[in-house]
């Protein structure tokens, strides 16, 4: 089924705040094997100029996911989520995510395409603090395999 291209440009309500905890940062850093002391030790992070321990960069995807899934699961979009694979990922950081951040994610559908029988969705997520400070932007391209209608 073709995706509803009329939704390009649609934005979704901001997610409930995600409070970044120290133990979550440590857990994520451990899971990706990042041993940088700034991810674990407050004094080490402060020595690099950060207020608290620093999340590995791709942690931004974890926080953004609640936002991007609002777009992907929009019933008006018509995406078959069971056939989805992750096609591309991009991060643009204003600053790294640190423990203590309370982040809200706002998703916008950037592009909808159909290529070689696959539906392709690009979603942008702006991650800001509750106070309105911009922290990072994520761009996620997902591909629904074999779901596009043959174009006329």
């Amino acid at each position, binding site marked *: 089924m073709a995706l509803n291209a009329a939704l390009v440009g649609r934005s979704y309500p901001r997610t409930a705040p995600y409070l970044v905890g120290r133990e979550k940062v440590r857990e994520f850093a451990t899971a990706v094997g990042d041993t*940088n002391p700034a*991810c674990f030790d407050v004094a080490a992070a402060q020595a*690099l100029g950060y207020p608290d321990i620093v999340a590995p960069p791709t942690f931004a995807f974890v926080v953004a996911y609640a936002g991007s899934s609002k777009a992907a699961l929009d019933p008006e979009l018509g995406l078959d989520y069971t056939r989805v694979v992750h096609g591309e*990922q991009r991060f643009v950081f204003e600053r790294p995510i640190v423990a203590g951040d309370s982040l809200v994610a706002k998703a916008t559908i950037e592009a909808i395409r159909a290529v070689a029988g696959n539906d392709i969705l690009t979603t942008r997520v702006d991650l800001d603090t509750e106070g309105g400070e911009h922290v990072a932007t994520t761009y996620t391209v997902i591909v629904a395999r074999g779901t596009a209608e043959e174009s006329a």
Partner: protein
Amino acid sequence: MTVSYADVAVGTALPAQTFPVTRFHLVRYAGASGDFNPIHWNEKFATSVGLPDVIAHGMFTMAEAARVVTDWVGDPGALKEFSVRFTRPVPVPNDDQGSQIAVSGEITELLDDRRVKVTLTATHADQKVLGNAVAIVQLA
């Protein structure tokens, strides 16, 4: 430690690393990231949807590629931009060895504000698993 912009040039290689990925790594990453898609831990499900085996999370592979940059510069906050294409899945057999993801990188452009562009190569079994893997890195 930090890397100084004055000490690098186009062509400077980052220290390459090889990252093991076993079922243990995938289960641990699933828990830490909240991505419990069964294609990353249940081979019965994975093969039922046409995959050769359980596959690694693309975001796990991307996280390992990021480590080549952040381990080099010594500051997890030095990564200003990072983009990849997931070109091929990394199958992870249910054995003690699992798979290996090899990541290398080199500076491909010097930018303003003491930033550099790094182009990364990530392979599994000598085949590229990431395409257009590019990082913009803040140096000292």
